[in-house]
């Protein structure tokens, strides 16, 4: 069945089976392979995308359920002029190694800081507990997110 939504600012219509997850739709139909699929049952967080402003697991959402939604994937975070402050902080703090979990870390942290630019370390750790990383451990990731907060606070001001 056809389903229409906006992905990274661009309206798209795709033909999917009802059972197609949003993750598979993004990866296979729209070739947005930045969204990674790890566990496919809502545990690892690698497939996190932002739907109508809220970070969600795209393996636990059917593409047809996202009809009419505004979706942002990791591809939608970066800008023409280069990396975002969050991505820059990830590079600076060595917050990624193999990179598999990174799209989910970035989308989750971006959604969090967009809503809560003053999130403290405890809050950040609690939110990121839904994303598994098997390489770096979490200390550099948390450091990167803490540092990126400043940019979100600036963006908040009119």
């Amino acid at each position, binding site marked *: 069945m056809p389903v229409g939504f906006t992905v990274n600012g661009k309206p798209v219509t795709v033909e999917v089976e*009802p059972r197609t997850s949003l993750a598979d739709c993004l990866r296979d139909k729209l070739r947005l392979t930045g969204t990674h699929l790890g566990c*496919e*049952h809502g545990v690892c*967080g690698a497939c996190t995308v932002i739907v109508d402003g809220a970070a969600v697991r795209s393996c*636990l*959402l*059917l593409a047809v359920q996202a009809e009419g939604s505004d979706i942002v994937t990791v591809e939608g975070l970066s800008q023409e002029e280069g990396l975002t402050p969050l991505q820059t902080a990830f590079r600076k703090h060595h917050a990624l190694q193999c990179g598999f979990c990174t799209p989910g870390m970035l989308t989750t942290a971006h959604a*969090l800081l967009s809503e809560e630019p003053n999130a403290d370390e405890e809050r950040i750790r609690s*939110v990121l507990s839904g994303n598994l990383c098997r390489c770096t451990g979490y200390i550099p990731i948390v450091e990167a997110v803490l540092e990126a907060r400043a940019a979100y606070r600036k963006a908040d001001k009119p």
Partner: protein
Amino acid sequence: MKPPPFEYCAPGTLEEAVALLAADPGARPIAGGQSLMPVLNFRLASPSMLVDLRRVPGLNGITTGADGVRLGANVRWRDIEDDAPLASAHPLLRAAVAHVAHYQIRNRGTVGGSLAHADPAAELPGIAVTCGAQIAVVGASGGRTIPAAEFFTGPLTTALRGEEIITELRLPPWPAPRRWGFEEFSRRQGDFALAGIALFYDEDAQGHAANARIGVIGACSRPHRLASVEGALNGRVIDDETIAAAASAARAAVDPPQDLHAPADYRRALVGTLTERALRAAAARRGG
């Protein structure tokens, strides 16, 4: 890890949704999907059709008033988190919901979905049973309300009929001075609890506990109250002696499952420890 094929529809009214479910015994409702989707991905269920409730109006409300707290079936965990009046209208509910899953799941998971899924370790069913809540449902022959104590009949099993849809959870009024505690233990943050305890009591003029309620999750096949522990609390001052007696009664009152995650004895010991912690937190806490 892909679901089996199914039909999908997203009706615009509750009546339509019920009619679709009634017409096809293999059809199942879906809301946030945070419990159902893993079940589908593992192919533990293969419904012929999913009836999405996302367009059904009137299921998104949170109301607090003299008759208690009402949560619409499509209310998400994060809506409960963000609802400021709930902090005083039902602090036990807020505390329990803070333990539900992870950030991303909290953005989608719903009240109705958690109740219908009926995981024995889930927080909301435990709160519903402990508080004596009513669950409002609508089916082909109209609406009915089911007491939470009769709603959960076993692991992932409820009193819902095939075509019935949960519309609302109704929690009884919460007196402001009521003392309460919620404690659960899981190996990692956001995991299902190996055991959890929800409890509350009021105090009479002499400082004795009254109307004590205590419910268990995780260490059971369905959430249930521990009547013997309630008996050990009512009429007593909640001091070290009462707490020790209550913890001992709680250990004796549960029949925990044994599985990969923990032996039954471990869960039984946890129930005692969590009862003690919850009672200490309740005794130290002033009102809401």
